[in-house]
């Protein structure tokens, strides 16, 4: 009986494919939204976790402004501040000063605009960022500000293609320097920027020939083994407040971010987005359900005679009820299936475009199937009951 009800329902609905499709559009959209969201969300989370791992765990970013943007009356850091932290903070193993700006790099007739980072001693070690070809700058080169540079993968490929850039002379603005190494690939940062689109030079060279000042824009600090980043943050905060003479009632005039905090911020953002869009999806499922209910009510009216005939040849009320309920469930399940296919297709393309991994959550798909079936049952109930309550004689007389 059930199998037959399914088959009959499929047939009844495929007689009017356009109407059936329009009926389930709400469910399609609702399910597609949820699945796409969850799939992309998982991909994004995985991507962020990869990047956080790539960024180096237990690394603190210390910047002299309070927020990410340019703060009002920012007191800049100096190279001395970094040395001070490395010396005074027991929880910090390495504190490396750095500054960055965007410039055009020219090699022969190729050029690209990229981020130039001036790095102090320990920067690469703190970020756990190896050089995979060539060599790192020596401490001597860093101290003297030698005209040498490291290429990120993106820059190396842009300017030299498959050729090795080691030993080549390139121009940064008016400055000429020699490429001594290529950095390992890092991928995207948690905020979507390409971390490999970078050229690194000694901070001293950067100060003298590129920035024209001696400001340190941020300090990268590696937490010493045996300490948590929480402990390190507390100590650094304490030391910097004293050193920068922040009154006890004033708030910090610097900002300490650890890699975990970036992850937490990201997770919180994703969670909020998920909640928001889930609400949208829920609303569209309800709207979709009402659409199904509406069409099923129309269908019951249209098919009153059919119901009468079925009752006359021996269908019980429950059989008629089953038939119409199954029809509603088939409708909404079909909508759910279309939604799932659409969502997976779209999130595959989006994941490719954004460089996220494409991670399908089978649990959510099962849930979507369950939900669309539930929508069919809930919103098919009223029309099905109306059909089941028809009086056979009255129904048969209907034109």
């Amino acid at each position, binding site marked *: *009986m059930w199998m037959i009800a399914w088959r009959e329902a499929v047939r009844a609905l495929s007689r009017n494919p356009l109407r059936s499709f329009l009926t389930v559009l709400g469910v399609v959209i609702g399910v597609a939204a949820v699945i796409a969201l969850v799939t992309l969300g998982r991909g994004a989370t995985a991507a962020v976790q990869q990047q956080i791992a790539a960024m180096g765990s237990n690394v603190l970013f210390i910047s002299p402004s309070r927020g990410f943007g340019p703060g009002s009356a920012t007191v800049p850091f100096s190279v001395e501040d970094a040395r001070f932290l490395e010396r005074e903070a027991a929880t910090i193993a390495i504190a490396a000063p750095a500054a960055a700006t965007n410039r055009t790099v020219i090699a022969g007739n190729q050029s690209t605009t990229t981020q130039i980072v001036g790095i102090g001693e320990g920067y690469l070690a703190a970020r756990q960022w190896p050089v995979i070809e060539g060599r790192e700058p020596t401490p001597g080169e860093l101290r003297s500000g030698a005209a040498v540079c490291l290429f990120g993968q993106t820059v190396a490929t842009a300017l030299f293609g498959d050729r090795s850039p080691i030993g080549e002379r390139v121009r940064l603005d008016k400055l000429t320097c020699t490429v001594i190494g290529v950095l390992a690939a890092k991928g995207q940062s948690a905020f979507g920027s390409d971390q490999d689109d970078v050229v690194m030079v000694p901070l001293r060279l950067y100060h003298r020939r590129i920035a024209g000042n001696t400001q340190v824009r941020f300090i990268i600090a590696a937490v010493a083994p045996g300490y948590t980043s929480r402990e390190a943050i507390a100590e650094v905060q304490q030391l910097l407040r004293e050193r920068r003479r922040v009154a006890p009632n004033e708030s910090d005039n610097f900002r300490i971010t650890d890699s975990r905090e970036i992850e937490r911020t990201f997770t919180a953002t994703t969670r909020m987005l998920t909640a928001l869009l889930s609400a949208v999806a829920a609303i569209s499922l309800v709207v979709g359900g009402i659409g199904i209910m509406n069409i099923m009510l129309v269908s019951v009216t249209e098919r009153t005679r059919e119901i009468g005939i079925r009752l006359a040849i021996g269908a*019980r009320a429950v059989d008629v009820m089953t038939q119409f309920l199954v029809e509603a469930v088939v409708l909404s399940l079909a909508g759910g299936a279309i939604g799932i296919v659409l969502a997976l297709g779209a999130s595959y393309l989006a994941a490719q475009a954004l460089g996220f991994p494409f991670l399908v959550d089978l649990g959510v798909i099962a849930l979507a199937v369950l939900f669309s079936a539930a929508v069919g049952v809930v919103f098919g109930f009223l029309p099905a009951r109306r059909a089941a309550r028809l009086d056979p*004689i009255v129904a*048969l007389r209907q034109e």
Partner: protein
Amino acid sequence: MSNAAQPRTGALPLVVLEGISRVYGSGDAAVTALAGIDLTVASGEFVALMGPSGSGKSTCMNVIGCLDTPTAGRYTLAGLEVTALDADARALLRRYVIGFVFQGFHLLPRLTALENVELPLLYQGVKAAERRARAQAALAQVGLSGREGHRPSELSGGQQQRVAIARAIVTRPQLLLADEPTGNLDSARSHEIMQLLAALNATLGVTIVMVTHEPEMAEYAGRIVHFRDGRIEREERGGLCG
């Protein structure tokens, strides 16, 4: 109980109508379709109902077929008091005990002839292969082999009527109710169908109640009951079996 409506001697009563009346609507608009019917049909009997249009024959058939509930009176089918049963129980009687050929055919327009005939078996839970075989056999019995795949709209009135007959007999019901089963058939076809019904009655002992306007067809029945204005006017013995 009217003396004229007594069953033939010996046989068990299958259908017993006692003082059945059916009034449609209420107040000034009330229409009395049946005004106190007493009728007993014995198991294995073949009864024809005749009478002018609007005399209540179809209404009476609907009551016997457990489709309509009488306004007053008592109806007993095979010892079960139908007037005391709920809708589901009556549905099961229609499913397992009764075959009904409706005056207006009542085929499902979107199903093929074969599927229409299979439908009552489907509700009986008969397996697909058997369902198909029995439906094909029933269509063959009414002379419609080769028309299995046609929809009602692709069949003539007479052919539709025969599909309706096949649907009523496919379940091998104990009680066959046929409301003008030959109303749309030519004389030769009508006689074929009547012979089929007579054979079902004679060989399988199917009890048949049939409405007809044609005295020629009524002759096949063992008893003819005449209706007028919602009452039984008189009864007579049929020609062939009487």
